């Protein structure tokens, strides 16, 4: 019990919260980037442009089917070989965005697929262009259908930032490791704190999604 009281001193809590802030920062930026990029990629894949869509689709499949850890290594250790040399936080954002964009693209593609093609045909018959039909008629419905899948993907994103401890990203998990590495009596208190903090962030994200769905629908 004494361990818990000592472990949750203000200094340690503040250190954890600093880590949590980095986690949130990276998550928010990556969510925005991967939502936009993923939607674009998903549409490219759905539209079946000659060759282009097939190539994009293949790259998406490669990225989707690799462990995130490898994407992190490829981004942080590999990109400098082609002249891009990101610092640790941009590197983490880049890795998360690349991986999650591919995941989102797949969700968007199957979301659009789930909408009856008759609707597009109807819109085209009414004089809309193909792009207008997609943007005005199909995408909004598809977005509503794929909301649950998207939200759980974004929750995964928040959780997966913890993997970037392996490249010494100063996020929540890493800061907890620094604390219990310096005093091993704090292992259990730190894991309890980690579980609670991640749970709060992820669960409030799903509550937010529920709220949005109710008020947008």
């Amino acid at each position, binding site marked *: 019990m004494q361990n818990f009281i000592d472990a949750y001193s203000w*200094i*340690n809590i503040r250190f954890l919260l600093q880590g949590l802030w980095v986690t949130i920062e990276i998550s928010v930026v990556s969510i925005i980037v991967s939502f936009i990029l993923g939607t674009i990629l998903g549409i490219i894949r759905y539209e079946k442009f000659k060759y282009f869509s097939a190539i994009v689709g*293949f790259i998406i499949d*490669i990225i989707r089917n690799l462990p995130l850890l490898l994407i992190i290594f*490829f981004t*942080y*250790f*590999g990109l400098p070989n082609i002249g891009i040399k990101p610092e640790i936080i941009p590197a983490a954002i880049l890795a998360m965005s690349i991986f999650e964009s591919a995941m989102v693209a797949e969700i968007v593609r199957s979301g659009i697929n789930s909408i009856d093609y008759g609707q597009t045909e109807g819109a085209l018959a009414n004089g809309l262009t193909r792009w207008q039909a997609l943007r005005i008629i199909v995408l909004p419905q598809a977005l509503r259908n794929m909301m649950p899948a998207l939200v759980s993907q974004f929750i995964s994103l928040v959780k997966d930032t913890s993997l970037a401890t392996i490249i010494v990203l100063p996020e929540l998990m890493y800061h907890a490791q620094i604390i219990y*590495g310096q005093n*091993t009596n704090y292992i259990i208190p730190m894991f309890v704190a980690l579980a609670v903090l991640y749970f709060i962030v992820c669960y409030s994200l799903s509550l937010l999604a529920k709220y949005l769905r109710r008020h947008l629908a």
Partner: protein
Amino acid sequence: MRKIWRLISAAFLGLVLLTCLSACGAKSVAEQDVLTTDQRTNRITWGVKADTRLFGLENIRTGKLEGFEIDLAKALTKKILGPNGKCTFVPVTSGTRVPLLKNGNIDAIMATMTITPEREKQVDFTHSYFDAGQSLLVKKGSPIKNIQDLNKPGKVILGVSGSNSVKNVAKFAPRARVLQLSDYAQAMTALKSKQGDALTTDNGILYGMAAENPHYEVVGGNFTKEPYGIAVNKNQNRFRKKLNWALDQVEKDGTYNRLLLKWFGHVKGFNYQEMKR
């Protein structure tokens, strides 16, 4: 048939892209002269440890890195760039330090890195700045007294992946099983969780751990010599020579001994007199 060809061409393109990402040589970094760039920007970027007591450890209160290597890096920076020279510290682990150096994220590694012939094929070292030796950390009262006690089937030794000590242990105790963790914080925690019978790495690091965890002790003496060197990229001879010169300077003017006393003077069991230069 056309569909198959399309798939094959796409697969080929994807493979080419991936190979480019992975295999392109790091030309740009090797061609730049680190010393010139650093002198222009008045800043040296060091790769250091953030989880190793006495050498490089993140202070939870201030968020700053502290330790012998940090202080030594600061002193060397001042010698090379003048009293206004600045340094940036990038925390690295044994696994990330060499890729980061090769990619040019850091200019030099000062992270408890032993000079070994294998590593010298990939990076260049300065002369040694600290003569460590590999030893063992066990729980007090443990039956293990030296490395021979571990050379039995069923014994588990903990180490850090990418460190030289896990390679040595395969030579000295080939019958034991070695578990490699990502950093020293994990390894120490795993020892405490009884995931292994002993933790092996260099004595300086182990004394730091023993100081923090009074139920653990360093045993068995040093069974290898582990001279630490500063690693720089190949073809950076000017920078390496300058670092060697700066090392000589801090050793001559007493800064080195002062730092040694500051960090190792009070460590129980550690003979810092022997290490004086």
